[in-house]
């Protein structure tokens, strides 16, 4: 059995990441003895759970961050913590013996605690989010969710990655964009499937993510969703860059309608189901090729 973690990514919102993640997950689960794990790593707005008609009770893990607190009695106002903080999250007015942690800027890096020589800084834990694990009749669904608007997502994604470390086949739905939440979500994957729309915005956004994945030395391929024409411009670009194009999903009102009603497309379109199963096989083959 292959060990394969596949991230589904797309820079622009609404290109069809969730649609591809869901259908690929169900297609693999229908294949055979494989039990696949579906992961929602779009922790700001996790949406995948809406696409399950019935979910069993989840096992939940709370993810916390450590926020520093300064003991005014012990503090000597030496300013070491202010100097150590790279995020200007500690406000000190020495003359009036005033010092305060600005929670909204704090990234929980721990530098101030390390810096303090007077044991004046302790850390309280604050709930950052939670991870829910659902055991499905076949396979698993794991969701990461952030509670509040905070600067950092990494503790949740790091724990998500730990949870799926020994899962044989995983499909990971990632947040849109090309910034830190995205790079965190793909950090331990074996293969990334980039979903794009035809047209110039689609291509421009695709190029950005390709650049990042190349920097990270990750293997990837592309799917075009909402395909209406021959996709000439994207295909030429992919050919030039030697990036495999694995699938084109046509733009159909039916698909949009079914997906918006939380229906799984492959349950209504056997040809599409076959294509998703072939897609998985192609990824397995590409991975094997790369490993040599």
């Amino acid at each position, binding site marked *: 059995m292959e060990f394969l973690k596949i991230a589904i990514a797309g*820079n*622009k*919102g*609404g*290109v*069809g990441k969730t649609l591809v993640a869901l259908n690929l997950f169900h297609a693999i689960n229908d294949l055979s003895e494989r039990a696949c794990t579906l992961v929602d790593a*779009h922790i*700001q*707005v996790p*949406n995948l759970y*809406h*696409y399950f008609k019935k979910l069993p009770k989840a096992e939940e893990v709370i993810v916390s961050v*450590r926020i520093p607190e300064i003991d005014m009695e012990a503090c000597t106002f030496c300013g070491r913590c202010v100097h*150590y903080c*790279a*995020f200007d999250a500690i406000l000190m007015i020495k003359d009036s013996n005033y010092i305060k942690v600005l929670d909204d800027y704090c*990234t*929980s*890096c*721990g*530098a101030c605690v*390390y*810096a303090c020589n007077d044991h004046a800084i302790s850390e309280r834990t604050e709930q950052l989010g939670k991870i829910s694990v659902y055991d499905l009749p076949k396979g698993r669904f794991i969701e990461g969710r952030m509670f509040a*608007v905070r*600067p*950092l997502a*990494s503790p949740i994604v*790091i724990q998500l990655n730990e949870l799926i470390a020994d899962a044989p086949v995983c499909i990971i739905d990632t*947040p*849109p*964009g*090309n*910034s*830190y*939440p*995205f*790079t*965190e979500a793909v*950090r331990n994957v074996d293969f990334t499937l980039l979903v794009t*729309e*035809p*047209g*110039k*915005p*689609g291509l*421009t*956004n695709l190029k*950005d993510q390709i650049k*990042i994945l190349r*920097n*990270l030395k990750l293997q990837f391929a592309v799917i075009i969703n909402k395909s*209406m024409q021959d996709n000439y411009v994207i295909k030429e670009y992919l050919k030039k860059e030697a990036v495999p194009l694995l699938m084109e999903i046509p*733009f159909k*009102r039916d698909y*949009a*309608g079914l*997906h*918006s*009603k*939380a229906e799984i497309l492959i349950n209504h379109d056997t040809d599409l189901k076959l294509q998703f199963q072939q897609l998985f096989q192609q990824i397995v083959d590409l991975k094997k090729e790369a490993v040599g």
Partner: protein
Amino acid sequence: MKQISIISAKGGVGKTAITAAFASFTKSLVLVDCDTESNDLRLLLNTESSKQNDVKTNQRVFIQEDDCIRCGLCKALCHFDAVHNDFGVYKVETVHCQACDLCLKACPVSAIQHVESLANNWGELDTQYGTLVYAQLALGEDLNGNLISIVRDRALEIAKEQGKEIILIDGPPAVGYAVASSISGADLAVAIVEPGPSAVHDIHKAIQLSSRYEVAVACLINKSDLNPEMTKEVKDYCQENNIPLLGEIPFDEVFIQANLDNEVLTEIEGSEAVVGLLANIWQEIIKQ
């Protein structure tokens, strides 16, 4: 002067296409693209890049292998799991580094140094509808600092200079820090929603964020006929929560066509119906 932000919890609901169409209805505005990871408004408006202003980000670090004494303190201290022991050699994975500098300051032999910093950037462009100010993150960067405040302040300056009455802001998807910065201080947040399974949650999140930042919010439903039951649920939700409903737009492939042709909706053949609806909605927004 009025500042209007277009937002949505879910991506792909039509924010940028609708923002561009709104812009085409008025001659007196300044546009702001706050989607710092996917700057699509300038692509759609076909404007060439102007002079860019770089905003340096915090510097990441790397470990000088020759100086490192393999004590492992950096790895132990890192809260971001960014230091790895690669067969006895300690290495910083730059993309996971949050540039907190703790390891650099703590290293007993000063073996850790800064790498050259990335640069976020922002700029302004002339479009057929007015000046567009945009902000763009360096690849892999997180939104730290005040990139969005910089472009919002700049848009205000331009609006005053040029005597424009409206600042129209295209926000990023989701409900994170970037969205908060895109709506704070605005007169109205227009939350666009499509009737997918998460629609009610999506509108709820947008409203939650708007109220946290004390910004008035109104709802616009796109692709409304894809799932009429859910559209009704969204409408009911808005009514219960006293959120004005600006209107609804049925699913129309002119949105995809506009993307393909890289044009504003108003320039696409067969877009009259959608454009008519949007024009009415724009009048509603101006009245609010």
